């Protein structure tokens, strides 16, 4: 860990990232929206649904890193425009993934937060590019990566002069097959111990099962995470990608109703004496 000059925690002070009126690292931040931007109706309906359920930011993919080259690759620039219009209408800042260094400045023109996906965590030229883009970066943990490897990737972004990195634990590969990945919740307190950067949880990709998303979201709150990123589709049955793990607006609203009180309860607990 000795090479982590910028990511390591030296004092009690934690990084707080202000994105329009959301303070990531201080408030519990919920980022929600469809896996990918499919069309105007789907994007706007999903955006309105997550807004009314109380989400703080809107997600949606315009460039999709898909396992198969024949799977839906995303709408590209047109997807970005739809996402940004939906964000403007609902007043939600937008988070979207960038997969190609050539796209970075263009995605930064439309998005409030640039997401680096799990498959690109160690794509160093991409990390350097987002380090210079002047937008906060949501850095997902590589599915085969150690915490140290992950933090070194954050260091790449920080060292380019971008102090606004949000870490995201999205599950790692284990021998378990019932869940899509294994959610490493211990990463939350570990990261808080090691760095000053905010960390959020992705309960969607880590479990891959709708029924597990609610309980793991609550567990993330209890573990001290700074927020969630979760997939919500206005009509999951017709989603073009990851249809079986997207929440309906109703289930999402239900989770949100339990999440906020739990966070308030956690805030009221006496501080541990460590």
């Amino acid at each position, binding site marked *: 860990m000795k090479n982590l000059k910028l990511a390591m925690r030296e004092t009690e002070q934690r990084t707080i990232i202000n994105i329009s009126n959301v303070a990531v690292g201080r408030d519990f931040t919920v980022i929600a929206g469809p896996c990918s931007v499919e069309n105007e109706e789907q994007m706007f309906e999903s955006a309105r649904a997550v807004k009314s359920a109380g989400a703080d930011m809107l997600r949606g993919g315009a460039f999709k890193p898909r396992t198969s080259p024949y799977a839906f690759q995303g709408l590209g*620039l047109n997807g970005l425009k739809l996402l940004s219009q939906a964000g403007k209408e609902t007043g939600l800042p937008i988070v979207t993934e960038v997969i190609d260094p*050539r796209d970075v*400045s*263009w995605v*930064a*023109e*439309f998005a409030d937060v640039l997401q680096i996906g799990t498959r690109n965590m160690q794509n160093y030229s991409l990390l350097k590019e987002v380090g210079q883009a*002047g937008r906060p970066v949501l850095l997902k943990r590589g599915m085969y990566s150690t915490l140290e490897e992950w933090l070194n990737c954050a260091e790449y972004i920080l060292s380019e002069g971008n102090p606004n990195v949000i870490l995201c634990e999205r599950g790692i590969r284990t021998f378990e097959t019932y869940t899509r990945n294994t959610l490493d919740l211990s990463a939350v307190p570990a990261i808080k111990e090691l760095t000053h950067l905010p960390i959020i949880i992705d309960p969607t990709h880590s479990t891959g099962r709708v029924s597990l998303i609610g309980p793991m979201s609550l567990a993330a709150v209890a573990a001290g995470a700074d927020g969630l990123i979760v997939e919500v589709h206005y009509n999951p049955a017709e989603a073009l990608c990851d249809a079986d793990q997207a929440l309906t607006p109703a289930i999402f609203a239900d989770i949100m109703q339990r999440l906020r009180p739990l966070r308030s309860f956690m805030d009221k607990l006496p501080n541990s004496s460590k």
Partner: protein
Amino acid sequence: MLDVRPARNALKQGQDKYSNLIDNSFEEIKMKPDEISKKMDKIDRELLVLLQERMGLALRSKKFQEAAGAAQREEDLLARMERMNLDLVKRSFSRQLLKTIIEESKRLQDEDRRLVAFQGEHGAYGDVAARRLVPAGAYIPCLEFADVFRGVEDGYLDLGVVPVENSLEGAVTQVNDLLTTTNLNVFGEVKVDVNHCLLATEATDYREIRVVYSHPQALAQCRDFLRRNKLEPRPYYDTAGAAKMLARENPKAAAAIASTLCAELYDLDIIKEGIEDAPSNSTRFLLLSREPYSGEGEKTSIIFAVAHEAGQLYGVLRLFADAKINLTRISSMPLRSDPGNYSFFLDFEGSEKDSKVAEVLDKMEAMTISLKNLGSYPADSGNS
């Protein structure tokens, strides 16, 4: 003043490329069906653009053309076109096509559209303003502001639309200068929000864009955007001219900064809208006419000069203050005829038909060296 000739010549050469369809290289012969249909689409668009130009000419010719002799001229034209030996375009077909076009021109001429002149190419902000001020007009592009004034003054065109001031750049001096000598009246005004867009042809991958063509002022207003995306600015004589050049020549790795109207007119993709660095940048345009506005009007524009003595300007302005008339614009410009002395441009609320305004104007006569009343006109409410 920019020298526009090189750019114009470049444009001309671009147009000539399209008459060059016979010269098929092997690359073109082995085109795939989708490439062929794309090329056909492009030709169809070109045909429509040319038709648009032709209809504009027909409307202008109507002003001076006598009905007598028109039928003979039409028959001559059809006969001449038939002598062109085009093996794929049958004579009967070309005759029928031209007849349809001529009929449509006549129909347009009968519609009695007003000819509205603006400076720049189609799609320029002047065109945007003209469409807002005169919804069902025929919009005629002019090379320079002076051409707009002359065209309307001499009766070749019905109305003119010119920019007087920009919220960031200030007065448009050439236009203000022309206003001091014109005998035209102000007939209306409109504020157009400058909404710069990055435009490119459908065939251009936005990630490959390296150079951006536009008017130097538009490039300057988007400096930050260009820097962020590592784009090289290339000055062009006009924003809309840059968009037109892009559509016709499709240079590699190039984009243009122009209005959304240009995207529609030249069938370009909008990569991003509102790319100007500072928001709330608007230009105020005046509508000029030979006849004064017949209604009341809510706003009045005047130009005056006073003797170079202490208190002269103050004396004039006090008339407005005492009469409680709100001024909406005041600017000064050196007199071309007498450098060292100034013309003052004053816009205020109220109509020259109001007694209190008439009284002030009356008193001003005695206090000024020159006083020119451009007229009263409806104010732009700002919504639309």
